[in-house]
């Protein structure tokens, strides 16, 4: 049980399923608000950025096979800086865990359970994700392999069903109202959501086969990204930029408007279900990454007790924000975009890749071990 292994396919579905829905539901609105009908271009830009980050992370990890971020950061950045950087990442995972937990709780309360107290949903959800996290990465991998295709289908099928209501006219004028800078700046709020594929630096060390790791990692982000692009196109063509920008969850709006023969209507509960799958995978993955990372940081192999502690800490942090706005708008714009994204998602992976490549060139000997 303690030999945890993953396959390429599992990593693929893990990243794709956890990113796609988060991106679509939480960032479409912000992107459209800034870039209006050209939001699809910004979303394409996000995909490019995301795949770039995924490439960096996967490349670094393949240079240090069998090692997680915690151990190879020592090699790359020196003992103390490496420890500091890996601690930053662990804290980042805990905070993101808490933020997603809270965002999800707010979503559930806002959409389907308006009278349930926040703490009860928070408690149940965090208890539920402990189960896969404590079972280890293999179980999370299998889980995403089962749920991943369902999640992707859950995004694509509603979009296909709504095709008859779409109108290409609503996309025009193309690049008429916005300049390149606006389009680019619109990509920024959603970039952190594709940037969280840095968790790859933990996952790749569990891989059984080292072949075509990079391809699978990049394609997983590409799949998640194309789902995002597609959904932006769909909501724009259906509602136009004004309606889309003013609704917190545009895709949910699209799903709600689907009607098949007047019998199947209001499918948004299905959307909620699909989103739950994605959140469940993401939360358990982050909980695992943070716990395993912390255990490794303290130099112990017994990571399972840490799951309980991290879950407790994350749960408490999730209680801090006072309302939906603080966690879904203030946190991303004030913390995630200006600090976390450039430093942890872009700069450090890139830096580590450059150092790793430089070291490799100098010694011409892979630092196995």
């Amino acid at each position, binding site marked *: 049980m303690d030999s945890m292994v993953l*396959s390429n*396919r*599992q990593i693929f579905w893990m990243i794709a399923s956890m990113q796609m829905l988060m991106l679509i539901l939480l960032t479409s609105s912000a992107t459209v608000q800034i870039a209006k009908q050209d939001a699809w271009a910004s979303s394409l830009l996000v995909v490019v950025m995301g795949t770039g980050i995924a490439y960096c992370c996967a490349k670094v990890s393949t240079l240090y096979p069998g090692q997680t971020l915690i151990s190879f950061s020592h090699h790359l950045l020196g003992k103390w800086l490496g420890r500091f950087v890996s601690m930053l990442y662990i804290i980042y995972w805990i905070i993101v865990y808490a933020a997603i937990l809270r965002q999800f709780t707010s979503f*559930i309360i806002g959409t*389907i*359970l308006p009278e*349930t107290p926040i703490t009860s*949903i928070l408690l*149940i*959800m965090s208890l*539920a994700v402990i*189960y*896969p996290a404590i*079972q280890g990465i293999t*179980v999370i991998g*299998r*889980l995403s*392999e*089962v*749920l991943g295709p369902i999640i992707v289908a859950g995004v694509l099928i509603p979009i296909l069903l709504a095709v008859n209501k779409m109108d290409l006219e609503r996309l025009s004028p193309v690049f008429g109202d916005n300049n390149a800078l606006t389009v680019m700046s619109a990509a920024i709020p959603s970039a952190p959501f594709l940037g969280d594929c840095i968790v790859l630096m933990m996952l790749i060390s569990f891989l059984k086969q080292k072949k075509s790791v990079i391809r699978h990692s990049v394609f997983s982000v590409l799949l998640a990204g194309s789902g995002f692009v597609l959904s932006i196109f769909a909501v724009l063509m259906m509602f136009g930029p004004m309606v889309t920008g003013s609704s917190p969850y545009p895709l949910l709006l699209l799903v709600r408007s689907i009607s098949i023969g*007047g*019998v199947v*209507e*209001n*499918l948004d*509960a299905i959307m*909620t*279900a699909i989103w*739950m*799958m994605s959140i*469940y995978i993401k939360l358990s993955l982050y909980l695992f990454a943070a716990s395993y990372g912390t255990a490794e940081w303290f130099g112990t192999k017994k990571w399972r007790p840490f799951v309980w502690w991290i879950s407790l800490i994350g749960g408490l942090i999730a209680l801090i924000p006072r309302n939906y706005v603080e966690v879904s708008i203030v946190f991303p714009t004030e913390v995630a975009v200006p600090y976390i994204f450039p430093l942890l998602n872009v700069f450090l992976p890139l830096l580590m890749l450059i150092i790793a490549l430089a070291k490799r060139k100098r010694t011409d000997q892979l630092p196995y071990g």
Partner: protein
Amino acid sequence: MNVPELEYLDNPMLEKLEQEMLSLSIKENADVLGQFFLDCADLVMHDFVVSRSRAATVFYFQGLTDTMQLEMQVIRPLTTREAESGELDSFEGVVISNKKTVESYGDAVRSILTGRSLLLIDGIKGGLSLCLTKFEARSVEEPQSESVVRGPREGFTETLSTNTSLLRRRIRSSTMKIQSFELGRYSKTIIDLIYIEGIARDEIVQQITDRLLAVDIDGILESAMVEEAIEDSTFSPFPQIQATERPDVAVAALLEGRIVILTENTPIALIAPTTLASLMQSPEDYYQRFWIGTTIRWLRYLFFFIALLAPSVYVAILTFHQEMVPTTLLLRVAQSREEIPFPALLEALIMEVIFEALREAGIRLPKQVGSAVSIVGALVIGQAAIQAGLVSAPMVMVVAITGISSFMMPQYPASIALRLLRFPIMILSGMFGIFGLMLSLLLIITHLCTLHSFGIPYLSPFSPLRPTEWKDSLIRAPIKFMKQRPGTYVGKNKMRQSVYAKTRE
């Protein structure tokens, strides 16, 4: 591991005697065996004289031996045998094919206990154990719990030798190996481990052997006890070993590289390793045309979810998400629920519990009373309950559909898991709506992902993904196209068949 011999705890002397060799004197032998079988009223000790010169005794248990054959083939030839020199010191003249000599008292005692007859002759070292076993047994009948429209009507019986013969008749190859184990301190039940060499994976055979050898238990009454002793996760509601009464199912499993475990005194054979997909297969899928096989399989998958979720979805929608239902339908349901005094969750719980009680009562009671129970039950959870205004009509329908769908599972143990899990899901969906429903579903899927059966992931071939094996899990492809054995279980010998003869010009 050194297991203390607890069988003779009250009489340590016997334990010592077990190791000793049989003596030349028949009197001494009879004395010692008499000590072992003190107060065993069903033991028969028959003394007679061989060749009119030597004393001999035959031991056997009443009702376990073919006395007719014993007398005709053993006692008569020996008594009438002419005493010639040299012949006296051997067991010559006993014309029984299945015989073996025993040396120690322990072996002698054990051979008598297994139903064999023990022959001792004065002056000859050792004894002769003869297989003249014959006892009352049920004949081969149609299996009760897995009936098919088309397919063989033979089922396993309680007799182990009959069961192995049923398998041998279907696989006439020396590569079908049968390993025998003895389990149970007192019951000494014979367990046969059957596999096809080359098709079965060696490490799985080894794993099962190891686990069987580690079992130390009083007695084995049914294969379920073997199952529980060797399965991977004891606390899971899902069966990790398949059980079957049908020799053809067992043979199909053998040909897939799985391993069959036969237990003495029960008609239920075990098949390991097992995956969830294999629990959804019925032998008839393969005996009918593949179209209907595939369709029925899909229907089964659909009803798997209905059996698990129908009441919970109903409760969740009625309690929290009325907007999901079209207005006219919602109005009808609301109308019928108008006078119901209970919330939907309580209504569903009551109905499901009553249904489970009725089902259990119907199974356990004698057949004559059983029909009475079903008549009363139909009234209780049917018309009367609706007319009394205690339960709404749609709820009765939901419960009925759930009940029927759990009967659709081709294997009984799989439906038990569904029956059990229904209740926690119902309670969670009554409390949290779709959120609770999804959460419990996710937890169940996670649990299925953690399960293994002898090293084989339980959700295979869906996770880990093996699309080539979907030919026999998602659909039932024509047998022509299933050229390879399922890679989940199989060992070295992977190809199932070569190319078929061309059937079309």
